[in-house]
């Protein structure tokens, strides 16, 4: 069938049968349905312009235009459904793919992204983001954590402690995300948990973006003395974003418990069977 959905007892997710992109997510327990579009983009790294010679580099994130470029308008998908897992494998390009996964009993959507090696043969440095777009009316606000211990309210083009003259409409709104970023319209909250620190923002109402990988061609004159450019073919990176959809009132308990489980995840150790008893008796 053309119906491309995965679900478990708590979460249902639908993908556009033509593009293969995530388009809807539902919290079955709280009966919350959220149209949500998620895909990957890349910012073209600045090499300096008439406003400033500052280039994008290891210290400085400075895209050369406000709009990022889509990695692909569609993904080749494969659907895997068994009684222990439902997955949609999305292939956006030779250097960008993702598995959207649901296990039984899981109250979040797991997005395992794999990005790289970032091609730079076209002479452009690239700063890759995963972006979630919804219709939530978030009034310029979003929330990011500080080391998983404190949530800070962020307002687009604003600083609480001084009158900001915003000269970088993208980078000037990026903040550190150590474990989570979320947006809310006071009824519904969309939270994205990260498995490592990333740069993140909400550059338009209802939108969340997280930077997953970068590969740049210029040094940014901040002392490193070389561009952020891995040698040889370049690194490819794999990580996970956990997406939670909740009522605003109950979202905190969900993301706190899940983030703690993500940070202190179980460790797996293997051994061939058998083994001699440790104690003689």
């Amino acid at each position, binding site marked *: 069938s053309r119906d491309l959905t995965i679900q478990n007892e708590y979460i249902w997710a639908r993908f556009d049968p033509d593009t293969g992109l995530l388009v809807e997510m539902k919290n079955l327990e709280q009966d919350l349905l959220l149209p949500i579009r998620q895909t990957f983009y890349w910012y073209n790294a600045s090499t300096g312009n008439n406003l400033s010679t500052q280039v994008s580099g290891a210290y400085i994130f400075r895209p050369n235009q406000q709009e990022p470029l889509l990695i692909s308008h569609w993904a080749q998908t494969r*659907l895997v459904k068994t009684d*222990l*897992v439902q997955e949609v494998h999305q*292939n956006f390009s030779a250097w960008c793919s993702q598995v959207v996964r649901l296990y039984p009993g899981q109250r979040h959507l797991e997005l395992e992204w794999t990005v790289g090696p970032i091609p730079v043969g076209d002479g452009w440095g690239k700063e890759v983001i995963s972006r979630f777009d919804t219709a939530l009316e978030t009034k310029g606000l979003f929330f990011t954590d500080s080391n998983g211990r404190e949530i800070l309210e962020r307002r687009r083009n604003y600083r609480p402690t001084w009158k900001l003259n915003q000269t970088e409409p993208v980078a000037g709104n990026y903040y550190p995300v150590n474990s989570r970023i979320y947006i809310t319209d006071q009824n519904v909250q969309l939270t994205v948990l990260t498995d490592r620190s990333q740069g993140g923002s909400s550059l338009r109402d209802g939108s969340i973006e997280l930077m997953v990988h970068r590969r740049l061609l210029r040094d940014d004159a901040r002392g490193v003395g*070389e561009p952020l450019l891995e040698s040889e073919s370049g690194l490819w990176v*794999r990580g996970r974003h956990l997406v939670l959809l909740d009522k605003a009132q109950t979202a905190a308990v969900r993301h706190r418990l899940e983030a703690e489980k993500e940070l202190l995840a179980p460790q797996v150790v*293997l051994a061939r069977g058998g083994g*001699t008893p*440790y104690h003689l008796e």
Partner: protein
Amino acid sequence: SGDSAPLNEAMAVLQHHDAVSGTSQQHVADDYARQLAAGWGPCEVLLSNALARLSGSKVEFTFCRNLNISLCPLSQTAESFQVTIYNPLGRKVDWMVRLPVSKHIFLVKDPSGTVVPNNVVTMPSSNGQELLFSASVPALGFSIYSVTQVPGRSPRAPVPQPRFQKPS
């Protein structure tokens, strides 16, 4: 004997902002990775000794550092093996274990010897197989599951059908 000092030392060195934010030259970043990897080795010995002591059985523990890219020579070749899952949280967790395996059917038993449901899933990107089973692990504790190949039979793992979208 194991030793966690080298890993502690590496983690201390990596508090430098260059290590945290990637603002070092490539050779320095490579050296940070080298220090971490060098610290893991003696730490794994320490963890093995602790697990042997606590589980009461001296076994050769194996740490598969590349599970995130579905590489683990032991689970991909052994006909039977044990999986110890350690839970650092102060509460019981249920955790879906995923291990790369060869094309077989497996029997998975929990610490009490009860058979638990498992799946063998074909990875579309690599056509490799992964064994999945749900493990329940106590707070600040560990559970040991046993995995055994069922001789003779290969999985009729659902081969995922490619869904080619017409390019928009």
